[in-house]
């Protein structure tokens, strides 16, 4: 009687239904809440790789004020940080350190490649000491073009990252 295929089908349907109910009523709100918290609380690691750090500094200044989005301007320890903003050229000497910093950050973490040099080497495409694009060593979520990107562009990149987080799974 247990082997009855109709019963099996019924049990399967019922468990699907339960899964659906859980998905809709339990997981979805939690996913929303956790993602909502994450997207408004992006703390950047203080890792300056090159000259784009000036525009990053300017973006946290009073005119552009990254804290509106819940970003702190410069946070102390990488253990409490969520995003790694690669601020410009990554040289061969910096690359292992940057990878190390990325690995030491706690999950979940995101990477923003800021500036042409971080995306592809940019102006330093033929330099002997420059990594041609940071996506070779760390996974990049948002690319922000510019040399250096204006603070407005950086803010747009951060909004794009927020949109990405909003849709992401937990």
């Amino acid at each position, binding site marked *: 009687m247990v082997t009855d295929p109709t019963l099996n089908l019924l049990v399967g349907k019922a468990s699907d239904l339960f899964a659906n109910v859980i998905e809709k009523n339990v997981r979805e709100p939690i996913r929303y809440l956790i993602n909502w918290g994450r997207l408004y609380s992006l703390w950047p690691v203080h890792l300056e790789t090159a000259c784009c750090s000036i525009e990053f500094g300017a973006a946290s200044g009073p005119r552009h004020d990254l804290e509106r989005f819940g970003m702190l301007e410069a946070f102390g320890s990488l253990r409490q940080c969520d995003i790694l903003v690669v601020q410009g050229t990554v*040289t*061969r*000497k910096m690359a292992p350190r940057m990878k190390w910093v990325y690995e030491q950050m706690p999950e979940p973490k995101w990477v923003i490649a800021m500036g042409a040099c971080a995306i592809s080497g940019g102006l330093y*495409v*033929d*330099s*002997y*000491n420059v990594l041609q694009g940071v996506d070779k060593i760390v996974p990049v979520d948002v690319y922000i073009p510019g040399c250096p990107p204006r603070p407005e562009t950086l803010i747009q990149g951060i909004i794009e990252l927020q949109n990405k987080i909003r849709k992401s799974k937990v």
Partner: protein
Amino acid sequence: MSKNTITETKLVKGLKTKFNKQITEEYVEPNRIKISTSPTNLKAVALAIKELGFDQIISQGATDYPDDNLFRVEYHAICVSIKKFRRIMFAIMTTIPKNKPEIETLLDIWPSVEFHEQETFENFGITFLNHPRMERLLLPEDWDDIPPLRKDFSLPGRD
């Protein structure tokens, strides 16, 4: 001799008499003096220039001449403490063979040359004898190619 270069000419003349034509005057322009000397005399000449009042090294570098198979080592001295010499930049050049790139350091004459000589070391492979920290400064620790500013080192994609 124009009026602008009286001080400069006087300086070079004094040096020439002191070193008995072991230094060559390359040119004297307003505010610019360039002399060249042999590596063996370099230290004595540098000391004499320091005693004239040129107390800082603004730049120290080298140029690679693969055709002549030699390096030209350049020192640019300036003066910050004596007012009448402040406008003058003193360039001292010397050439060393490429197969034996060694030269005596000027660290004890101009302490400001320390990092410059380290940079020249890593960029050209020129060893400065008696320099206490003859090690890499700017290049990565795992650099195993030839020194990058030599002419036979070519950039990727730009042969």
